[in-house]
């Protein structure tokens, strides 16, 4: 099976040749095939876990590169395979370097996921960052992105070094054998949180994300948002959960929990305020990463407290959300790409009324948006149910610290979930409902060709995983067994999920069936009741006059705009949390000028970044004075150095 994996990786590497020659068709076909094969391979590896480690014939000068495909890797590889398969369907003509970078991006992620030693892990990690950097279009975003990536990589290097203090080598087996203890382990945790957090977009290291994701072509930002941040979370899982061993204290989960809740809140709030569709989706990625981090933190807490069942609950919730978010976010980004190509706009204020023009895309994206909004019976709700159940169970640990942390986290997560729902409604509603805001939108046609499977398949998977979460949890069982021992029961079942303790269950299948039946029954009833089919008329809209004929879609200003729709939340939450400004200028009575509203928010973390930049600037300016020394002074410097060293020597040699 590992040899299969190697062949796939080699194939991906080979795909740079057709990319170099500009054969888009071959590239697309190859990427789709390779990714599909990878997903199949991952499923196989989950059904029949692979334990052996494969040493590649090449590697760094000091050791061979190792590959492995244990259940944890396989789970993330499955996500990569699926999302990569869907995204690759939309690979289109592009500048040469972007074509070349794309397969390398996929390759980097795959290598990082399946690596079995520190060097290979980091090699894949950095290659992933570099390749995706090459595909960004805006220089500022690209710079910030790459610098954050370098920061993450450096922190992870340090973490690996500290981790390997006990073991000689960097192979995962050796590291597992000698887990760190005490302050060293703490340093490892901090380093990994910084490194992986910077890549996953955990607050306060999330600044690059809403800039970088919109700057890439649709299929790339789909992969960045759906898989790349998850790869960072995989690294976190691998280093903290796996390699640090099971003996770590229980409070390790707390920072992860709070950071996760915070970024969930922040991301969801920003998602409600952005007006660029891709930025909205990127911010919702921050939110979902935060939710996953909450789950992981809870899992650490429970394991530390020797509560295997809730630990399994939290862990499976997090992992399931990894998969769900990957799928629906991939779907949404791809859909936005299609919309951009059809309607030539990314801003919600430039779109509208697309459901009538692109029904297939619209309904598929509705499925994605609803499962992103955690609405039963779609996939998002299942994983968030597990996470909330885990949060509701923290009080059983009986430790005041955890209890109050969980209290705060619960309030934040609840608010984040509601905000996320609001953001998704705003996103989908403004884009697909209402009236077109530009002629180009009015002329849009529905998604064709390769785009259809690219959006329909993930939508179908969202439905499937929503109604049968047991499937995913069954596949996930080996991961839990690998981490908590084979005895632990997973929360999955045929009819739905069960939270272990007394009878808290989410019977999604019957609920979905009943829901469908009831809706159907009501519909039939409505049909039978007299009155007949519906008639059409101009919208009443509290008596607005019908638009003049030269404006077939009415005045755009009579529709809620992105900023207008965001106004209540901006005033209720944005003003206190994001230093929001909201200035309304009302013209004097009788003047024909419309009232104008100028609103804006700034992420407080920008201030911190600016302070750092200021400090760097000042320090470099100070040190740069050394450069202007004359020859004699440089000689003097040399002389002083020599004298100093000799003096040190003289002191050291005093008997």
């Amino acid at each position: 099976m590992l040899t299969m994996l190697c062949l796939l990786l080699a194939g991906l590497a080979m795909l740079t040749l057709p990319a170099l020659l500009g054969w888009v068709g071959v590239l697309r076909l190859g990427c789709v095939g390779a990714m599909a094969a990878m997903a199949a391979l991952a499923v196989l590896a989950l059904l029949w876990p692979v334990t052996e480690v494969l040493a590649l014939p090449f590697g760094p000068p000091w050791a061979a590169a190792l590959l492995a495909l244990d259940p944890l890797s396989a789970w993330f590889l499955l996500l990569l395979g699926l999302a990569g398969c869907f995204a690759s369907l939309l690979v289109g003509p592009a500048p040469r370097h972007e074509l070349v970078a794309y397969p390398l991006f996929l390759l980097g992620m795959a290598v990082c996921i399946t690596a079995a030693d520190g060097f290979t892990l980091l090699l894949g990690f950095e290659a992933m960052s570099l390749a995706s950097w090459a595909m960004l279009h805006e220089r500022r975003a690209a710079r910030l992105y790459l610098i954050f990536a370098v920061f993450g990589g450096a922190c992870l290097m340090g973490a690996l070094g500290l981790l390997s203090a006990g073991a000689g080598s960097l192979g995962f087996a050796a590291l597992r054998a000698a887990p760190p203890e005490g302050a060293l382990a703490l340093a490892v945790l901090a380093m990994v949180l910084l490194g992986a957090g910077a890549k996953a977009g955990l607050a306060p290291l999330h600044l690059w994300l809403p800039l970088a994701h919109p700057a890439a072509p649709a299929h790339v930002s789909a992969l960045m948002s759906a898989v790349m941040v998850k790869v960072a979370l995989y690294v976190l899982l691998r280093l903290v959960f796996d390699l640090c061993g099971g003996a770590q204290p229980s409070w390790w989960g707390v920072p992860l929990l709070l950071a996760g809740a915070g970024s969930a809140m922040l991301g969801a709030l920003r998602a409600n305020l952005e007006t660029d569709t891709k930025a909205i989706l990127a911010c919702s990625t921050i939110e979902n990463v935060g939710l996953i981090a909450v789950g992981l933190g809870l899992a650490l807490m429970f394991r530390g407290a020797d509560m295997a069942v809730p630990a399994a609950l939290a862990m499976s919730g997090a992992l399931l959300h990894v998969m769900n978010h990957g799928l629906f976010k991939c779907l949404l980004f791809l859909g936005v790409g299609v919309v951009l190509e059809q309607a030539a706009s990314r801003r919600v204020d430039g779109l509208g009324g697309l459901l009538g023009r692109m029904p297939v895309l619209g309904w598929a994206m509705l499925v994605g948006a609803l499962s992103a909004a955690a609405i039963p019976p779609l996939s998002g709700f299942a994983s968030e149910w597990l996470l909330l159940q885990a949060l509701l169970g923290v009080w059983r640990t009986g430790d005041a610290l955890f209890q109050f942390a969980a209290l705060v986290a619960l309030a934040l997560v609840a608010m984040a979930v509601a905000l996320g729902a609001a953001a998704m409604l705003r996103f989908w509603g403004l884009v697909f409902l209402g009236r077109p805001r530009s002629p180009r939108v009015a002329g849009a046609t529905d998604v064709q060709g390769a785009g259809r499977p690219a959006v329909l398949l993930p939508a179908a998977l969202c439905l499937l995983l929503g109604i049968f979460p047991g499937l995913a949890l069954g596949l996930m069982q080996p991961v839990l067994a690998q981490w908590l021992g084979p005895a632990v029961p997973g929360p999955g079942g045929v009819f739905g999920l069960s939270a272990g303790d007394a009878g808290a269950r989410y019977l999604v299948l019957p609920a979905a069936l009943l829901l469908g039946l009831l809706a159907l029954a009501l519909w039939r009833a409505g049909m039978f009741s007299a009155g007949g089919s519906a008639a059409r008329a101009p919208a009443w809209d509290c008596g607005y006059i019908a638009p003049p004929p030269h404006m077939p879609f009415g005045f755009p200003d009579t529709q809620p705009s992105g900023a207008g729709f965001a106004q209540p939340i901006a005033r209720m939450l944005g003003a206190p949390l994001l230093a929001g400004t909201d200035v309304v200028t009302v013209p004097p009575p009788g003047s024909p000028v419309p009232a104008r509203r100028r609103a804006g928010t700034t992420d407080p973390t920008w201030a911190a970044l600016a302070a750092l930049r200021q400090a760097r600037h000042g320090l470099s300016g100070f040190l740069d004075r050394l450069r202007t020394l004359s020859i004699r002074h440089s000689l003097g410097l040399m002389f002083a150095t020599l004298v100093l060293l000799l003096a040190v020597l003289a002191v050291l040699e005093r008997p």
Partner: protein
Amino acid sequence: MIAGIFSLLAQLLHAGLVLALAPVLIGFVRFIKARLMGRRGPPLLQPWRDILKLLRKRPVLAEGATAITQATPYIACAATFLAACLVPGFAQGMVLAPMADLLLLAGLLALARLALALAGMDAGTAFGGMGAAREMSLSTFAEPVLLLCILVLAMVAGTTNLDTMVATLRDGGVGLRVSLALAAVALLAVALVENARMPADNPATHLELTMVHEAMILEASGRHLALWEMQAALKLLVWMALLSAVFFPWGVAPAAAGPGAWALGLGLWSGKLFGLAFALAVFESAIAKLRIFRVPEFLGVALLLAALAVALLFVSTGLA
């Protein structure tokens, strides 16, 4: 066996009752409010009459309205009705009891809310969008309170399954009424906001700038409007039933106990519902509506109460 049949029968009866009772409850509230204002007030069945009348009218769709407008009423109504079926009424332990998870309940209500908001945005009118935006922002503040109240109940009863919870609370052995009382107040506030009642919204007005719920169904008509009215009524019932079941669980009959026990439970349940409706009417006519941007403060107080309740429970569990 016999228990299974009884639980099925109880469930069917409950469903029927819910469906029949919801508009009546609305009518009751309006009647009391009218009385308190010194008017004679409409008969209790007036809402039913309106709904039936609307059902017979054909809907008129706005130009550019999509299938969303046509589909959402059914989905929202079905979701709310399912939620109503899950909340124990005169009896607990009905067929759907295992499904009655509080989080699922919240999810179903969220589904209904989202459907409503989508319907409001479909025609692309100013007021629909405004109503949707306000509804979602208010829910943003209601959700944390709800979750914290659920945490309180889960800690008291040891589960989030509503049915088991009701049984536990009814059979007593639960101390700490203080935190339960605090949670009750908080949950009441949530219920008011969720049902678009005073002080968050005025159900009687059509003055555009003050309304939330009505703004979203401005374009609805005919049977769609009927379904929306029905959904609103069902939602009110769900919340009242929830409050009464959780905080006044006395006399909720075990479904297997048979018709005798049901009758008693039925009496008590309707008493609780109408009592709550009366209290609501009095409350609404006693106070004025808040500015929309003041509602977060209102819910913030509720959040504080809920957090206090949770903290008290932490302390007690820590002591115990």
